[in-house]
């Protein structure tokens, strides 16, 4: 399902955070949205699905496969969410309902949108668990009994259980260690491609971006500064701000890879290390 | 001292600037003013009763009418405000002192003392203050002391429970550890480091307790263990007239209204205070000067 965003503005308490953003995702395309924290990228993701709190002012146009989202009622949007769209959150530990078992959590979109027999729902949940690489006994467990990587697999399973046409992934790997990050990205990409769905992938991590997306949009302080093929953009950023972001994102990637080294004087120097070297370092760590 | 005054001025000014803070400040100011004035002047002498003019409607002579003994309702409410003010001040002081004592015990370095006091506070907190008041009333009879001790004790426990997490954070912080290593006494640490840090929490909790104390006064006085008969207080005015609400609703309206307005004001005061002393919601505190007492706490 394609996305067409035109002139999107988002303001909180009279202060504009997103200033007229244009963004498109083609059918079956994987697009990245990258920017430093506070650039408004998560806001855009939430605005697309109508998840922003009611006191946030959204204007412009967001079209999801022809349905206008801005100004639509919560009821209409709830009919889209979980059926035609799925969302993967940054921190599954703080978003998966702690009182629901994994099975109940994954089948929630099915229950809300489809009138299926219980046995059929269970079958689908089990098939989905297998697809995301979780053992069957996870079904009856609660979120607090799982690891971070397992939790994110549950999040992905929940987002994909209804075979939605659009996946919005909001920094799905940020809370994970580097090896798990790669597995999760690969899983997400294979599932999305397998289903022929579109994906908007939000991140500040360039090494992940290259794996997850073919095209990307760079956001800085609420405005789009550059759009292009991911590979080309990484190799030679045209905009000065993009270049700064690429550098900053690399430094940030290193920081997450070596959390203990953040206060180290060498942090500035390690920002110069190339993306490839940093990948290798992560694997060793 | 100057800095503390400056801090208080900044906080009060930011409370005054908002309507939700101005109203309670005005009510409390009026309360204090009326209490002081009532010491020297009331429209009618308190003890002047008049068997021929009971349950009078409001008039030029009796602004809020008269009660069942023919006494002037307005004068009694005026005089009652000073009794209630004294009760609230004493209760808050007792609660603050006991609360600090409990906090000191709960964050103390003696693990046995700390553990035991946490359990004791948890157990005692579930005993309603009214039961303590009733027990105290057996030897003491109806008196202001019963209200002050029972409420002060109960609110002190609440205060200790609310303030404990913050106090524990300070008591286990690196700078307190090093101060202790340098030979600082427990009392020094308590008043130099812990109190400045839990002061905001304490003030908010105490202003809420002040509201509860006003309510408790009316309840306990009605139950016959609070303010003794013949001493003016809002609870006394309410208790002596409330039975007649269906016959003389207007007379009963006033004391109930006074209590409700004052308790609302004290609650709003607590909320406004919370906003005014929180650097997140009050930009005036963020500009950084004058808050010397708090700098200790922000070290880590």
């Amino acid at each position: 399902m394609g996305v067409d965003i035109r002139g999107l503005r988002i303001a909180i308490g009279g202060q504009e955070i997103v200033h007229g953003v244009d963004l498109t995702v083609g059918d079956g395309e994987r697009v990245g949205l990258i920017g430093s924290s506070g650039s408004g990228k998560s806001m855009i993701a939430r605005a697309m699905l109508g998840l922003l709190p009611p006191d946030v002012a959204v204007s412009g146009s967001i079209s999801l496969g022809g349905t206008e989202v801005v100004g639509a009622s919560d009821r209409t949007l709830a009919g889209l969410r979980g059926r035609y769209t799925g969302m993967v959150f940054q921190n599954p530990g703080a978003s998966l309902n702690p009182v629901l078992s994994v099975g109940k959590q994954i089948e929630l979109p099915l229950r809300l949108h489809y009138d299926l027999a219980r046995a059929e729902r269970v079958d689908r949940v089990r098939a989905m668990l297998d697809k995301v690489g979780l053992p069957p006994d996870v079904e009856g467990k609660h979120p607090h009994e799982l690891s971070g990587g397992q939790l994110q697999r549950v999040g992905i399973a929940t987002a994909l259980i209804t075979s939605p046409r659009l996946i919005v992934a909001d920094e799905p790997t940020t809370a994970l260690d580097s090896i798990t990050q790669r597995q999760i990205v690969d899983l997400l990409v294979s599932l999305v491609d397998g289903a022929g769905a579109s994906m908007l992938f939000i991140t500040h991590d360039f090494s992940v971006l290259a794996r997850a997306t073919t095209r990307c949009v760079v956001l800085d302080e609420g405005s789009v500064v550059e759009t292009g093929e991911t590979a080309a953009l990484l190799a030679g950023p045209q905009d000065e701000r993009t270049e700064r972001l690429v550098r900053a994102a690399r430094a940030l990637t290193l920081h997450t890879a070596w959390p203990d080294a953040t206060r180290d004087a060498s942090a500035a120097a390690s920002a110069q290390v190339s993306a490839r070297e940093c990948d290798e370092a992560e694997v060793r760590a | 001292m100057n800095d503390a005054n400056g801090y208080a001025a900044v906080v009060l000014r930011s409370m005054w600037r908002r309507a939700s803070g101005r109203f309670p400040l005005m009510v409390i100011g009026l309360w204090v003013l009326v209490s002081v004035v009532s010491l020297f002047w009331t429209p009618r002498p308190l003890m002047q009763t008049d068997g021929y003019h009971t349950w009078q409607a409001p008039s030029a002579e009796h602004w809020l009418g008269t009660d069942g003994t023919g006494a002037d309702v307005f004068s009694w409410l005026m005089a009652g405000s000073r009794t209630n003010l004294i009760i609230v001040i004493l209760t808050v002081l007792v609660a603050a002192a006991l609360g600090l004592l409990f906090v000191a015990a709960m964050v103390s370095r003696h693990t046995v003392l700390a553990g035991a006091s946490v359990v004791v506070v948890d157990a005692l907190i579930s005993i309603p203050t009214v039961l303590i008041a009733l027990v105290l009333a057996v030897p003491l009879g109806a008196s202001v002391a019963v209200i002050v001790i029972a409420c002060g004790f109960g609110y002190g426990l609440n205060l200790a429970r609310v303030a404990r997490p913050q106090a524990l954070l300070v008591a286990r912080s690196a700078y307190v550890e090093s101060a202790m290593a340098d030979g600082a006494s427990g009392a020094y640490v308590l008043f130099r480091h812990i109190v400045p840090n839990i002061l905001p929490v304490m003030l908010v909790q105490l202003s809420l307790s002040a509201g509860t104390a006003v309510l408790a006064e009316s309840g306990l006085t009605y139950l016959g263990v609070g303010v003794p008969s013949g001493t003016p207080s809002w609870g006394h005015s309410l208790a002596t007239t409330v039975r007649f609400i269906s016959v003389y609703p207007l007379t009963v309206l006033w004391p109930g209204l006074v209590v409700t307005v004052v308790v609302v004001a004290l609650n709003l005061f607590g909320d406004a205070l919370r906003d005014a002393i929180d650097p997140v919601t009050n930009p005036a505190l963020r500009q950084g000067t004058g808050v010397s007492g708090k700098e200790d706490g922000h070290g880590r």
Partner: protein
Amino acid sequence: MRFVLRRLLLFVVALLAISVAVFAMLRILPGDVAAVMAGVNSPPERVAQLRAELGLDRPLPVQYLDWCGALVRGDFGTSMLTGRSITTQVGARAAVTFPLIILGLVIAMLIGIPLGCAAALARGRRSRAIYRLVSIIGGAIPALWGGMLLILLFGRGVGLLGVLPSQGFPTSGWGTPGAALASLALPALSVGVIVGASLMRYTRSALGEFVASGYIEMAMSCGMTRTQAVLHVGLRLAMPQMVSVVGLTFAEMITGVMVIENLFALPGLGTGLVTDVGNRDLIAVQGELFMLAAFFLLIGLVVDLAHRALDPRLKASADGNEVSA
């Protein structure tokens, strides 16, 4: 299971502690109990006789153990004033007070929880301010006054609507359940309104923590509307916290309950306690205080167990340290 056992043990220990506290408070306080009970102007012989009658001349530990032993047998002693067994007296009074408390709490929940949810979901500054004011004013009304206003509105004979009894309790007690329930309706409503206001405040703040949380976003992303998500997910997640709060509210309730009992002339523990304190009937006071305190401890126990059962994170964790701490 270990948690349940530990919690039960704590309950028993607390019960013991309460019995010591009640006993000690009435003994340590200034004034000779026998002299107090005999009255101000009674001759010394009478005081001595009373002291012997009550067994007050024996050592304190013996007195305490004696009292405990009697308590275990369900014997609260004999009232000095009426000469009747306190056990039957306390039992009859508890049959009024405990239903009143529970009914009041149910009404409080029916008022407080929906209003709290509405307040948490409220959009716009104005409606939020109104909800806040409603809860503050509701919590600031003296129980005495609020109860009287209700009598004025609904009380039979005096009230505007004149439908419900506003004084006393049927002598046949729960033998006539309809009449008994009717006479508890207005008192319970009074208690419910007062407690409901604070419950509303707690509900709003407990829910408020979750309204902007990832849990709500997750539920919405699965296809719930915001309102559905707050009511299904938010309320469920806030429930353990709210159950704890209800437990604390209970202790706050008792002042209001006592005032209301007096106001509505209900022969409950509150009225009894006040009368007995006034009459210096210490044996009765001792028994009634213990009974009330034990009831509150029991509520605390139920609340903690419910809290535990509602939160799978606590239920599943191997040891329950964090709960009792």
